[in-house]
């Protein structure tokens, strides 16, 4: 970095990039947490209701909504990558963490057909808890870590309830680990942007 005249726009860029480099600034706006949180929550509840109504194809909600979620996530991620002026270490670690989580989720969903609902839903809730616990640590955001503990508790509890109730436990897990912390994260992110 040399000493030379700078414009105000350059000044802003320097400040933003240096602060992002040095400080564990909240690197996530919570959008994907909220988006996936509500998507899974609604899917689980709809599936539960359809089962109660003895609708045989209740699970159909998953293969419809999840791929849509995947497409929207891909578009959103590509757009935010373009907009970002700085890529911090936190961004990088979060990227690896959530990519690994995505792969693990795909395998857990695959296991649904092989091992049955109980063991698969247990794995899903453990994964929700794990990924949000580590993200909470990286972002230094307590609500995510606390939400993750609830998700672990729901996972454990789900082992002792009938299959149908698994949907409610899954909805509870995603509410605590994604939706509530996601909204809190978004509020915090927005308030930091306004400083």
């Amino acid at each position, binding site marked *: *970095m040399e000493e030379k005249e700078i414009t105000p726009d350059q000044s*802003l860029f320097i400040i933003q990039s*240096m602060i992002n480099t040095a400080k564990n600034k909240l690197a996530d706006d919570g959008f994907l947490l909220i988006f996936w949180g509500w998507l899974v929550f609604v899917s689980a509840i709809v599936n539960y209701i359809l089962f109660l109504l003895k609708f045989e194809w209740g699970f159909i909600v998953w293969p419809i909504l999840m791929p849509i979620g995947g497409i929207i996530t891909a578009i959103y991620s590509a757009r935010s990558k373009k907009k970002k002026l700085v890529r911090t270490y936190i961004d990088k670690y979060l990227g690896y963490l959530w990519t690994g989580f995505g792969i693990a989720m795909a395998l857990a969903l695959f296991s649904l057909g092989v091992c049955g609902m109980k063991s698969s839903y247990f794995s899903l809730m453990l994964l929700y808890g794990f990924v949000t616990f580590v993200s909470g640590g990286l972002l230094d955001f307590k609500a995510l870590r606390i939400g993750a503990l609830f998700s672990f508790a729901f996972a454990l509890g789900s082992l002792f309830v009938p299959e149908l109730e698994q949907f409610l436990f899954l909805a509870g897990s995603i509410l605590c680990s994604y939706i509530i912390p996601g909204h809190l994260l978004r509020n915090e992110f927005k308030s930091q942007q306004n400083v």
Partner: protein
Amino acid sequence: MFKDLDPVLHSQLRLAVVSILVSVKEAEFTFLKEKTSSTAGNLSVQLQKIKEAGYIEIEKKFKDNYPQTICRITPKGVEAFEKYVKDLQQYINIKK
């Protein structure tokens, strides 16, 4: 306006250093050198200028027999940085 921006901070390297120091408790000289991609000589000169303005304090000590230079922002430095950002925002708003 543009001309009113604090001349101590309105320089690429000095602004970069102060931006880092406002967000961390303290930073070593080597850390600042790495993050700002500057040369040791230039960084030393600029750190001295910021110190003379009272915006940072510099502590020199030894760690495992190696000299260590630690920089911290002072309350005056934080105040100056906040004022600089506000002035910058005003300037950008005027420009818009």
